[in-house]
């Protein structure tokens, strides 16, 4: 599928002297926008009332978007790598924005299926393409610090929800005078429709700005003082390249898929349940020592650690290596989960500290994985490989809540649960992290039979490189 020439990869090859520090804001413009996906709780109840639908029926909008994220990242990954970041970012902007606009029409006309089609399907495609669009570009611009570079962008995805939540409340307050954003208040459907319209236009401009300023490095470019030979010396790091179609044939890909799946499943277990969990952990005689407002504050704190973990841990991986940092995420994660299950209910501060570090590892796992892929498979089609790996996220998004909700449903009624009711779920998470830990330990360098011939580092739409012997 060809793209208009002004979007093509060949048109955005940076001239000598281009400053690579213009690339992170381009990536952030996209990730801050699509990170809105995690701020849907702001208007969820308003949509339930507007459509007179169940919470589950409205929840499908978000679930559909996340499933489409996984599907589109996997399907369009190769297209993204082939056509470059400008085409990908612009396409993501159009889909993400169209999702909001069609969704807005659905709310205005009271047709829920249009919201499914808009935000769920179109928006979800924008999410998937947008999420992977800057990754390989950042890795190519920052071969000396790929963890820092991808950490910055993927931190933006965590930050996007932080921006969208207060912004959405403010906008709905402007469109509905009776809505102040206080707990328990519900905005009108009309104000949510106008919110969708506004966000769709804001995100379109913001993401297109990213597409406009993004550049790819010339084939022979490298940062000042950077010697690729120093990278090659590190264990597990290759300077060879593996195509996306070959990568999925390697055990390394599926081991890393398992690592990501386990890390995300464990993190989602806490994130999904954060507010009621802290209240349940400190419930005595039917009353919790933690007020609803404090529980909401806990959710906010976890968001901060989720975002910070993406940047801090991913940057740290540049120094200690990708395999060791995942040993920390998964191994220390096991210890922290056991701590949460056994002594977590002793004091609030200990509970908060344990959960916060666990969530920082969850975020770190997301942000470090592109650099891990680069180490194993090279830069050639790292975006496409990343896209395929994100199916682990979609699978974990189903498994994590299923495990925690299934266990808690069996333990008792919401509002009456106590700390001990969480123990089975927490110990299951310990087992899952153990599986991930072993999978990470088993990752070895990729066999050279999967390597592409030389001169395939910069893929172009016109030149299909000579293929490796592995099909």
């Amino acid at each position, binding site marked *: 599928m060809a793209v208009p020439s002004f979007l093509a990869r060949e048109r955005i090859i*940076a*001239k*000598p*002297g*281009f*400053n*690579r*520090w*213009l690339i992170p*804001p*381009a990536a*952030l*413009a996209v990730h*801050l926008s699509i990170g809105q996906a995690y701020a849907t709780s702001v208007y969820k109840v308003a949509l339930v009332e507007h459509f007179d639908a169940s919470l589950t029926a409205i929840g499908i909008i978000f679930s559909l978007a996340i499933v489409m994220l996984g599907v589109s990242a996997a399907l369009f990954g190769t297209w993204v790598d082939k056509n470059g970041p400008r085409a990908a970012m612009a396409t993501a902007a159009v889909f993400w924005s169209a999702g909001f606009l069609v969704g807005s029409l659905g709310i205005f006309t009271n047709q829920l299926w249009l919201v499914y089609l808009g935000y769920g399907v179109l928006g979800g495609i924008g999410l998937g393409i947008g999420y992977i669009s800057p990754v390989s570009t950042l890795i190519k611009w920052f071969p000396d610090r790929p963890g820092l570079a991808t950490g910055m962008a993927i931190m*933006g995805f965590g*930050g*996007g*929800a*932080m*921006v*969208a*939540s*207060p*912004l959405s409340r403010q906008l709905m307050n402007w469109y509905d005078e009776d809505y102040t954003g206080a707990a328990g208040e519900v905005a009108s459907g009309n104000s949510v429709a106008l919110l969708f319209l506004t966000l769709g236009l804001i995100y379109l401009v*913001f993401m297109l*700005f990213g597409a406009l*300023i993004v550049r790819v*490095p*010339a084939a*022979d*470019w*490298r*940062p*000042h003082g950077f010697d690729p030979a120093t990278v090659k010396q590190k264990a597990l790091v290759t300077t060879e390249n593996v195509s996306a179609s070959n990568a999925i044939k390697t055990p390394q890909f599926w081991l890393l898929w398992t690592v990501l799946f386990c890390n995300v499943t464990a993190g989602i277990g806490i994130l999904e349940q954060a507010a009621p969990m802290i209240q349940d952990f400190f419930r005595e005689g039917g009353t919790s020592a933690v*007020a609803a*407002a*404090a*529980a*909401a*504050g*806990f*959710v*906010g*704190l976890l*968001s*901060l650690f989720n975002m910070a973990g993406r940047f801090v841990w991913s940057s740290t991986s540049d120094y200690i290596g990708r395999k060791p940092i995942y040993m920390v995420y998964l191994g220390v994660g096991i210890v922290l989960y056991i701590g949460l299950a056994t002594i977590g209910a002793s004091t609030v501060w200990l509970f*908060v500290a344990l959960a916060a570090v666990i969530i920082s590892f969850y975020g770190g796992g997301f942000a470090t994985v592109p650099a891990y892929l680069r180490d194993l498979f090279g830069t050639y089609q790292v975006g496409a490989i990343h896209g395929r790996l994100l199916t682990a996220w979609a699978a974990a998004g189903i498994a994590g809540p299923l495990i925690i909700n299934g266990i808690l449903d069996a333990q008792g009624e919401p509002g009456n649960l106590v700390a001990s009711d969480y123990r089975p779920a927490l110990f299951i998470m310990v087992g899952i992290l153990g599986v991930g830990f072993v999978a990470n330990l088993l990752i070895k360098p990729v066999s050279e039979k999967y390597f592409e011939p030389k001169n395939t580092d910069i893929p172009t739409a016109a030149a299909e490189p000579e293929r490796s012997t592995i099909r």
Partner: protein
Amino acid sequence: MSSTSSTGEQPASSTPGGFIAFAWALVGIPLVYGLYNTVKAASALFTG
């Protein structure tokens, strides 16, 4: 901070510093707004 060619030369940056600052401000300001609001909400954990 700036890029170089593979020959090891250090060409003068062709990207205006003001534009780089503008791009960072454009993404930084919303991020700070979000961080401020999240910290405000999180503070309820210790005060609420």
